[in-house]
């Protein structure tokens, strides 16, 4: 029986694979502790397998990327050109920068060897001899923990030259970012790792699996995705695929924040719990006397869902079924069918005390700050949306400004180099569509064209607390 710290015990509805060792009483980050619990055994198994067979297992497992896009990991690995003669790289995306997401942090801080083992197996499968962990700068201790873990693994022969006598060589290096959200986007990350500004590259042709780091084939995977690989080797792809629901296999860590009694991380089988269970059971419900107003289900870029929305969904047997927000199973496909995305697993809950103009404004400030500036629609549009929502919050906007906000968002979406364009537009598109009346109540009846005082009142509005 695993003992967890008091108050940190997993909820009965959880299924802990990746977070098995998080908050354990008798756990630490040392390799000795990891080895006592069968650590690096899956690496030993994998090194005896054919590389192709490992990739097949990962494909069979149905694992979909946990970084945001939900792309099948095994399939991504096969995109390395078959006749490739260049070195292959693997990059672990530990930028964890999508607002609302906080799972990779705990893996890195509490179970670094799990990540290293998953990475090493993955590198072996795709034929990478050099790998980088791109970790956000705001995890300084995390970077140190990883560096220590790498040194320990090297000393025991799990990393470095001729790993466990297999002839396979791998070096893993930790590379720290410097506080820019766009470094989470895989091609921006690669530019950053090359020592440049993190300007994302256009796809095609720059799909990392073909033209990535130093124009060589590069596999970029999220921290959590790489950890799952270890468990897929342990369980076998088919057995792993039994977890979760069809096409939405395995477990995933939901990060819940906002207006619930117990915010935090909950590892569940994908699609086996509903939004209602997440809110009411895992998180202990809303705060006393409050009502649910809205949920952002997959990181701040995901479109907001309104509490009273009804969703008409096609069932496997072809019939249609209407469900409410609390009935949505937490998987990739249903949340997409409801018009949003499961994204990075960051669930932000808002109750009826929240002012939606203020919430949108907070997000617009984020995107305006983080746009890399390469594409005109994104660079100008994100700032424009921020300024308009600043004005709405300050009560200095006209009702037409709300419509204008929407127009701008639709001029970004789909017209940019990277998916940040959508990420920045979707909050505005969805908040305006779903909370239009509330936004309009903030506007004033002043005539358009009237000169407001932009410096003193408006400019600071984005940096204000929510009005009481």
């Amino acid at each position, binding site marked *: 029986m695993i003992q967890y710290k008091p108050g940190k015990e997993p909820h009965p509805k959880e299924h802990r694979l990746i977070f098995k060792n998080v908050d354990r009483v008798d756990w630490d980050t040392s390799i000795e502790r990891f080895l006592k619990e069968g650590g690096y055994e899956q690496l030993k198994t994998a090194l005896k397998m054919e590389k192709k067979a490992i990739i097949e297992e990962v494909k069979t497992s149905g694992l979909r990327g946990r970084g945001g896009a939900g792309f099948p990991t095994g399939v991504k690995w096969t995109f390395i050109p078959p006749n490739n003669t260049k070195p292959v790289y693997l990059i672990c995306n530990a930028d964890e920068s999508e607002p609302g997401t*906080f799972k990779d942090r705990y893996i890195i801080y509490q179970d670094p060897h799990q990540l290293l083992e998953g990475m090493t197996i993955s590198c072996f499968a795709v034929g990478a001899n050099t790998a980088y962990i791109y970790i956000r700068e705001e995890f300084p201790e995390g970077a140190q923990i990883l560096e220590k873990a790498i040194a320990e693994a090297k000393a025991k022969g799990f990393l470095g030259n001729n790993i466990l006598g297999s002839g396979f060589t791998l070096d893993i*290096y930790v590379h720290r970012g410097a506080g*820019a959200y766009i470094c989470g986007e895989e091609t921006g990350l690669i530019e950053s790792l090359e020592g*440049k500004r993190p300007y994302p590259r256009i796809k095609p042709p720059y799909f990392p699996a073909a033209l990535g780091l130093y124009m060589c084939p590069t596999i970029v995977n999220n921290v959590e995705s790489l950890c799952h690989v270890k468990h897929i080797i342990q369980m076998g792809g088919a057995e792993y695929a039994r977890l979760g629901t069809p096409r939405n296999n395995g477990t995933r860590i939901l990060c819940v924040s906002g207006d619930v009694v117990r915010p935090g991380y909950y590892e569940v089988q994908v699609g086996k719990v509903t939004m209602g269970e997440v809110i009411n059971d895992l998180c202990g419900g809303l705060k006393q006397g409050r009502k649910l107003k809205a949920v952002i289900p997959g990181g701040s870029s995901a479109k907001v869902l309104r509490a009273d929305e009804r969703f008409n969904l096609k069932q496997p047997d072809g019939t249609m079924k209407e469900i409410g927000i609390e009935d949505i199973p937490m998987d990739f496909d249903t949340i997409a069918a409801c018009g949003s995305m499961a994204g990075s697993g960051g669930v932000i809950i808002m109750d009826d005390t929240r002012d939606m103009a203020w919430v949108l404004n907070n997000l617009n400030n984020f995107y305006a700050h983080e746009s890399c500036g390469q594409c005109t629609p994104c660079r100008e549009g994100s700032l424009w949306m921020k300024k308009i929502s600043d004005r709405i919050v300050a009560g200095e906007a006209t009702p037409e400004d709300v419509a204008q906000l929407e127009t701008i968002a639709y001029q970004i979406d789909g017209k940019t180099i990277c998916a940040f364009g959508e990420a920045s537009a979707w909050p505005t598109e969805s908040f305006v569509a779903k909370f239009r009346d509330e936004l309009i109540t903030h506007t004033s009846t002043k005539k358009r064209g009237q000169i407001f005082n932009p410096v003193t009142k408006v400019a600071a509005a984005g940096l204000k*607390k*929510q009005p009481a």
Partner: protein
Amino acid sequence: MTIPTELLSKIDDVITHYPVSKRSAVLPLLHLLQHHFGYITDEGITWVAAKLELEPMQVMEVVTFYPGFRQAAPGKFHIRVCRTLSCAMAGSFELMDNLCQLTGIDRSHTDHHHSIAVSPDGKFSIEFAECLASCGTAPVCMFNDDFFEGVSADKAKALVADYGSK
């Protein structure tokens, strides 16, 4: 600008992590310099460029892009308060006001390009940061490399007192 031997050996070591392209070492070198000197000077930029056989502009453009690099001296303890949604809902703007009051910092002159404000005694500096990936324990902040979660008014007071005495 003198680079102590210990720092120099760290720098030389980190460059070996990028056998294909020394340019990749720009960020790690800037981190090492900033950690040692507190911020990145023009001289530091030229030094990194020479070390990695780059044009100073190639280093400069990196320094000016990333919010994590500073070109002016911060306080002895640099505070970063998370500004993003979950923390804001949990009161990070109040936390910011609170910390400013406790440290005597006036943030009224900050803007997008000059986001850091320093206390009169130079002990503390402060700025907003975007989501620090701990939204479940909001509001959160950092004092230099130390991370703090669930920072209530009392906790903020204790933190400033604690760091103030260091």
